[in-house]
């Protein structure tokens, strides 16, 4: 009895928090998504499925969802390409006490406000920005580099924002690998490439998958980075949803689009699950 009370007392706050901070708002939004009007003030909304129908009927939402998924894949791929080797280097090549310093550098982006971080990129990427001037200094005849307000700028900003997730989750998987495994492989004549392909990659896969999910899901709903760095190229499903809340007070349509996004994410994760299992079996 005492033990059960203790468990309840210890886990209760966490569940209460989940209920209040996640479950209740989500339920409210789900309810909003089937209303004809935002139920605030003295409006009288009725139940309707028109907002979900709008997604099926208007190609603009589908096109922008595709665009967001494309950006999500691109950002996740770049994070994996940079993050996995970085985590490998961090877990194997960096000596113990330096590791903490490097770790600090990795999580540094988390310490700064997201808006500040994103606005800093506008100073780096634009014509006459840090990147442009740096390149001109090294190579005077270099063509002007002006990446600001392009799709590339959005991808760069998002990769910078989410890369730590990939490094940290890959690091956790890789640092658990037993050194003797690698020594054995090398001793049996495996090349560095073979060791990477047959040992590091499969053993680090859980971290890679976890990192990809952690990145892909928020990136396809991102709206702040696309808006600031993308300019006219920054219209994505996230900004469309935001506009429903800020520009027209059409919360029901915004909520419906959010839930469609959520459904698509869940579907992708569901489809990826057997793929991941097969992958693990093969390797």
């Amino acid at each position, binding site marked *: 009895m005492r033990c059960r009370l203790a468990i309840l007392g210890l886990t209760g706050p966490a569940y209460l928090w989940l209920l209040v901070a996640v479950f209740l708002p989500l339920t409210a939004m789900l309810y909003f998504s089937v209303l004809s009007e935002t139920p605030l003030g003295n409006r009288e909304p009725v139940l309707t499925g028109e907002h979900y129908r709008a997604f099926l009927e208007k190609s603009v939402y589908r096109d922008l969802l595709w665009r967001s998924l494309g950006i999500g894949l691109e950002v996740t791929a770049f994070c994996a390409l940079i993050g996995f080797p970085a985590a490998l280097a961090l877990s194997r090549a960096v000596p113990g006490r330096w590791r903490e310093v490097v770790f600090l550098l990795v999580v540094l982006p988390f310490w700064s406000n997201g808006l500040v971080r994103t606005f800093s990129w506008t100073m780096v990427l634009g014509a006459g920005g840090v990147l442009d001037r740096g390149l001109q200094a090294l190579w005077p005849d270099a063509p002007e580099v002006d990446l600001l*307000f392009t799709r590339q700028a959005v991808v760069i900003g998002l990769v910078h924002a989410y890369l730590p997730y990939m490094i940290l989750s890959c690091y956790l998987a890789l640092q658990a690998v037993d050194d003797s495994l690698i020594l054995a492989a090398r001793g049996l004549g495996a090349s560095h490439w073979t060791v990477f392909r047959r040992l590091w990659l499969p053993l680090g896969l859980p971290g890679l998958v976890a990192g990809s999910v952690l990145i892909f899901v928020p990136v396809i709903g991102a709206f702040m980075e696309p808006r600031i760095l993308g300019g*006219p190229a920054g*219209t994505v499903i996230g900004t469309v949803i935001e*506009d*429903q809340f800020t520009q027209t007070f059409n919360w029901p349509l915004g909520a419906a689009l959010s839930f469609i996004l959520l459904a698509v994410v869940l579907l992708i994760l569901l489809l990826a699950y057997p793929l991941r299992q097969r992958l693990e079996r093969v390797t």
Partner: protein
Amino acid sequence: MISTMQRLGAGLALLLALGGVATAQQLRVLNWQGYGTDEPWAVEAFAEEHGVEVVHDYFNSEQEMLTRLRTNPGVYDVVLINSSYTQQAVSEGLIQPLNPDQLSHFEQLDQSLRDHPYLRADGELYGAAWVWGATAYAVNVNEVTPIPTTLEALWAPRFSDRLGWRDDAVESVQLAALALGQDMNSPTDLDAIKARLIALGPQIRTFWSSEDQWNKYMAAGRFDIATYWSGSAARSRKAFELPIRFVIPEEGAIGWFDGLSIPVDAPNPELAHAFIDYLIGPAFYVRWDTEVGAPAPANRGAMAELPEDAFNRAVMGDPAVTGRLTFMAPIPDQRRNRYLELWQEVKAAIVQ
């Protein structure tokens, strides 16, 4: 166990008591950031006279302002509402009638604005006309000669990738309607407007959403020409010393005027009236326009006190110029949703 509970309870009671003390005499204002009411000298002057702290909250769009009123009843004392939204705020029961007898400067206000039907409902006054202006565009005079005079110029090849555009569905539709010679308050051919806006794609360098952002982009040379508000243009010139000129195009411009209102459950309606009276008076306005830059005043006395070459007297006081303005009418929700849909189709087309 009991003692822990008691201690917790005592702590909670203490917190509540502290909270009660902290909420003494504050006047909460909801407005755009940097839009007059939050000038430090104005806040100080009012605080000194009335012994009340003026606290500000800001919104980035009219919809956000309405949402804040809907979701925070009993929080705000004074709110700035664009006249095309006043009727909606009244019908949703968000604002209360004003008492003109408590506004000593009320009689000085320009009659056409003061008694405008947009600010009234059921014979009651719901907004005190404060300032008015135009939405068109401003150009960087160092980069652009000669200064364009038409809306059509926004589509000129000269400004390819050099145009800043406000990311706002209603404003976009209305500017395109004016350029096409349609009635901006009830455009007849939305397809033509959509096509015209899509044609703007290659022109647009980036979208802006706040005055602050506009100033930063213009200062950094991100654009040569950008849609803008006349009052903000005055501020950008004076307070930020940007080399810009505001143009009221030949085809016309969007006219608007802003009123000051009091939300339904305002904690301090008396003080709110006093603050509004201070804001619509000439002393506040003249200092705001000469030191910082402001839209044109609804107070005729205030306009007469401006220097003769002031933009708000020389240009905005000229009937030939103001004749080109079409004042924004209230827009029903349905049509606003249609505009946003159209604007999103445009943005999605531009992106491809």
